[in-house]
């Protein structure tokens, strides 16, 4: 029997929990904020959790052989300590690319079709057609736009394949090595980012947050985005210097800012981003639909089955890259 500690048991149905036990796991379920004693913690060979190690220190788990994040990120996990102890860490892989890519398409279309303006008119029972006679123009299209996707991973790829159907002019991707990825017209290395930014109508940030990408979009880079451009952040708030961004938005330096993530979350009430007309925001829920627990539990179940059989697991964290 494999001793397994599981938080977030609510992700699973009762049947699935039975299935896990039948695989050969002796499983305990606790809250992700549980404070276990060293004696309780030392029993476990495998931990499936997220923020648990902030509440029960990793050194208490003296017999640990595997850690699995119940999220697709590992920011709340003691990655360096796990690496030092040589304990493999796994995370959910490609679970959110569909809902997040759909969220990006949804928000882009809200901006281009002026959904917020129309909703305000609807609320006031006012029928006012947008037309070419408006000084700021009629509605816009995705058709023919140039898109730059920073980060050509699962989310970027899903987004690129959806955007393709809208007949955008070009989909360029940015990744670490500049390797070509099928869904993109072309991919460039990270150090070419500054040359690409002025060419794009739409810039979408999907790359992970690491030490190297903290404030990747500082004041200087933000200024490379076109004044009529749209910036979308669906990754992590700390990739953008939010103060510099607010300044740019206030000065009319960007057509739209669309974001699900912020430097401080929950977004503080005093942030001007709440009320800016050309800012579309959601409370870091772009990855959530009714499918989330269904996809996540199916993935975790598959990996638990593989672990029990000694087979390779999906979604290993690369300790060199840190994600």
């Amino acid at each position, binding site marked *: 029997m494999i001793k397994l500690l599981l938080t977030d048991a609510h992700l699973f149905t009762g049947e699935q929990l039975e299935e896990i036990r039948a695989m050969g796991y002796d499983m305990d379920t606790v809250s992700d904020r549980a404070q276990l004693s060293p004696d309780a913690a030392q029993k476990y060979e495998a931990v499936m959790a997220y923020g648990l190690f902030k509440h029960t220190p990793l050194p208490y788990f003296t017999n640990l052989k595997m850690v699995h994040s119940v999220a697709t990120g590992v920011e709340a996990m003691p990655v360096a300590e796990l690496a030092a102890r040589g304990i493999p860490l796994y995370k959910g892989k490609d679970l959110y690319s569909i809902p997040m890519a759909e969220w990006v398409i949804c928000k882009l279309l809200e901006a281009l079709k002026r959904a917020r303006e129309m909703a305000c008119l609807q609320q006031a029972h006012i029928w006012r057609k947008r037309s070419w006679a408006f000084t700021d123009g009629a509605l816009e299209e995705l058709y023919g736009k140039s898109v730059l996707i920073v980060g050509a991973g699962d989310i970027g790829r899903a987004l690129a394949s959806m955007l393709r159907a809208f007949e955008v002019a070009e989909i360029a991707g940015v990744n670490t090595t500049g390797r070509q990825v099928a869904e993109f017209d072309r991919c460039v290395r990270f150090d070419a980012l500054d040359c690409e930014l002025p060419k794009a109508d739409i810039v979408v940030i999907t790359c992970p947050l690491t030490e190297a990408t903290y404030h990747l979009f500082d004041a200087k880079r933000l200024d490379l985005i076109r004044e009529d451009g749209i910036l979308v952040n669906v990754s992590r708030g700390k990739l953008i210097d939010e103060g510099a961004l607010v300044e740019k938005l206030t000065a009319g330096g960007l057509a739209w800012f669309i974001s699900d993530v912020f430097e401080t979350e929950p977004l503080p009430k005093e942030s001007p981003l709440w009320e800016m007309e050309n800012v579309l925001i959601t409370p870091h829920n772009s990855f959530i639909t009714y499918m*989330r627990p269904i996809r996540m539990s199916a993935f975790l179940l598959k990996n638990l089955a593989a672990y029990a059989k000694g087979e390779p697991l999906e979604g290993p964290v690369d300790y060199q890259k840190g994600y």
Partner: protein
Amino acid sequence: MKILAVNYFAWPPENYDVFVKMGYEVDVVLPGDPPPADDYEVGFFEASYMTTHADKLKKLRFVQMQTAGHNHLPVEFMKANPQIQVCGGSGSYGKSISEWAIGGVLQILRRTPLFEGYRLEKKWSWEGSYDARELWGSVCGVLGTGDIGTECAKKLAAFNCHVIGLNTDGRKVAHFDECLPTSEIDALCERCDLLINTLPLTPKTKMLMGRAQLEKCKKTAVIVNVSRGGIIDEEALADMLNAGLLMGAAFDCYDVEPVPPESRLWDTKNFILNPHCCGVTMGLSRRYLEHYIENAENYIKGRPLAGVITPGRGY
């Protein structure tokens, strides 16, 4: 050879230079203006302008319109004047309207009105997030398999959807996974996660989606109307949305336009009301110009015109 061009598009005068280069003389007027002369051979204007003024234009031989729906055409006048070839704009609206239709679907699925409400209160909350749905893998019914329907189908395919087209005889059309005849509307409503109406309004399509059909839809269904009012029963739809019997609806066209201020549609639950302009985009304006250029060139060179409308066919 003279063109009378009605400028609906706020185009600058230089947009018309290309026709002068082709050998035309061009008079540009605004939609409210009468024709400044009566010797135009070519007209760039819409059905209402034709209805009001065309009988005075005795030399008129070719009219280029841009609307895709032809239920306002002066059919009797056209039948009495077969020397005038009237060309439609079918093919211009597909891209812009299908974008809006997909956007409308996604906003309902992702519950944009709910989260916009939170934003206005500066409320950071996931409440309701798990009721959001995905387009990915949906079964989609597209009523009408013309340009707009086809553009919708192409985009839906990128979301891994199974797309069922509905047309008069159920003939197979490219980009649709299957097609059903209009007589199968009930079955379509039962099967689909979302329904997009792109049909023209004709006696055969009138009230095609009545209360009985709407009641066959799934409780999670999303209904979109981007073509004409009169095809989907608005009263039944509003009743069902308010009762939570459908996930939501996004409309651009209505039985009565403008929608009267006292209409219940404005405040219907999970209903996105757009004031019949979803196809009017900056991109469309550029494509219109290309379309005018193409047929003006065909006409002056004596080549067959594209998109000639048969009066009385209704689409």
